[in-house]
């Protein structure tokens, strides 16, 4: 209990203190997770909408597969990506292992299924009349897709928030492909693991609180943006 209280105090100290290493870690976390979610959204939102709207064979199976990948264990993702990017792996020539690039790949693999699956749910929950209206007014398939995404944007922001949560909280995969190298690939979650391992519980909790704080600011930003775009909206 003492550690929890102490953690709050230390969290404040970290934020107020302006330590370069600490802020570097926060920044890297933001960059890696932010980029992952951005890529995940660029791929997952259209893919999810397609899965919801398409009428191709195997659609339901594919959708189930995406749902299943929401539960991809990070260590497995990390391991597979490690094997791909390892020196003796097929993508070893890129020399991405133990760099932020590989971490972005790993987190994208974890965030993308969540964004895809939840976008499919969001678009699939829309009244079918939205689709018929758009089609009946001359929208092409892509225009229908964009219109449906726009109509479901409230729920799609929820999908992005979930994807971001997954990316930011994740540790197994980035640990594996990033290596938690100080000054280079150490992010908040791997730093938390390190502190926990060294018995610095209160520091681990402090970092966790900071991470949640960062997530809170990001989420609030997303929601404010979304609400601004919404015009009048009932609550």
């Amino acid at each position, binding site marked *: 209990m003492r550690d929890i209280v102490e953690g709050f105090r230390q969290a404040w100290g970290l934020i107020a203190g302006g330590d370069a290493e600490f802020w570097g870690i926060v920044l890297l976390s933001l960059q890696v997770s932010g980029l992952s979610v951005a890529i995940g959204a660029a791929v997952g939102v259209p893919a999810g909408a397609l899965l919801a709207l398409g009428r191709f064979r195997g659609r339901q199976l594919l959708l189930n597969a995406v749902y299943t990948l929401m539960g991809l264990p990070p260590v497995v993702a990390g391991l597979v990506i490690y094997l791909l990017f390892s020196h003796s792996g097929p993508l070893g020539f890129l020399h991405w292992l133990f760099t932020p690039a590989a971490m972005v790949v790993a987190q994208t693999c974890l965030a993308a299924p969540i964004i895809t699956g939840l976008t499919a749910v969001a678009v699939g929950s829309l*009244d079918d*009349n*939205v689709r*018929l*209206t*758009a*089609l*009946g*007014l*001359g*929208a*092409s*398939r892509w*225009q229908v897709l964009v*219109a449906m995404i*726009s*109509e479901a*944007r409230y729920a799609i922001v929820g999908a992005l928030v979930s994807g971001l949560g997954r990316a930011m909280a994740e540790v197994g995969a980035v640990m594996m492909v990033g290596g938690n190298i100080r000054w280079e690939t150490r992010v908040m979650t791997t730093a938390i693991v390190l502190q926990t391992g060294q018995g610095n519980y209160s520091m681990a909790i402090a970092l966790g609180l900071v991470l949640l704080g960062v997530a809170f600011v990001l989420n609030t930003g997303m929601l404010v943006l979304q609400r601004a775009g*919404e*015009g*009048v*909206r009932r609550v």
Partner: protein
Amino acid sequence: MDTGAVQRDPAEAGGGQPPLLEASGLKMVYGGRTVLAVQRLAVRPREFIAVVGPSGAGKSTLLRLLALVEKPAAGELWLFGRKVWGGGARAGEKELLQLRRRLALVLQTPVPFRTSVWGNLARVLGWHGQAPGAPESRRRIRQALQAVGLADKAQQAAASLSGGEAQRLAVARALVLQPQLALLDEPTANLDPGNVALVEAGVRSLWLGLGRGRGQGLDPHPGGEQELRPNPCGDPGGATVIMVTHNLFQARRLATRVLFFWDGQLVEDQPVDQFFTAARDPRTQAFLQGKAVF
């Protein structure tokens, strides 16, 4: 891809008044129940067709089929001289889109897109490749909003419109496209007499091809006196209109021809005067007397 679409015999297509739309054996099945089965239906350009019939007769289903937003369970459909469905063939996605771009469908349930009223119309124009900010687009949006009396609500969020306002927005979204074929599903059901007159005038303008030329705006408040006449310039721009309505007065006021559906069957197909005075089918007569309940 486009193998299913066959050009009509050019001789016939170039003829006096080839059908704009032709259906035969068109059938729709939902959950095992046949809700629509049309033996034969042909519509010539510039007709104004009212579709009437009891609730559940299949009128909305017909409109969705004619707008090519749903695929029939069976049957043939020709539209704008192209074969869309039939004989195992089906038009490719690209061709379907081209055909749909020449028509506009207004569903029975108005679905305002979650943006402003203006944005709703701008988006629809955008789909047709018109830059929504271009002066011509702005003029058309303004004109369409005026036609349905929503000009002063242009900036309001469409989701906050009243029932009748939403319905008028849906009509405006179709009018702004100036389609060759307008498929309207009870577009005035939620409107008071004044707004009914307004929307009817807008639809008639479209039918007559008024306001199609540049700068030739629709009269926003046409009033009852001033009769609307076809475009005097001989502009072939007038549209074909197929409108579902439960308002028999409206059918009489506007239509040139009336189709009466009963339990998915087209049981009466008559010019407007005959329909009201000399209907052949007893079910039609019962319907006209307000006794037909399906």
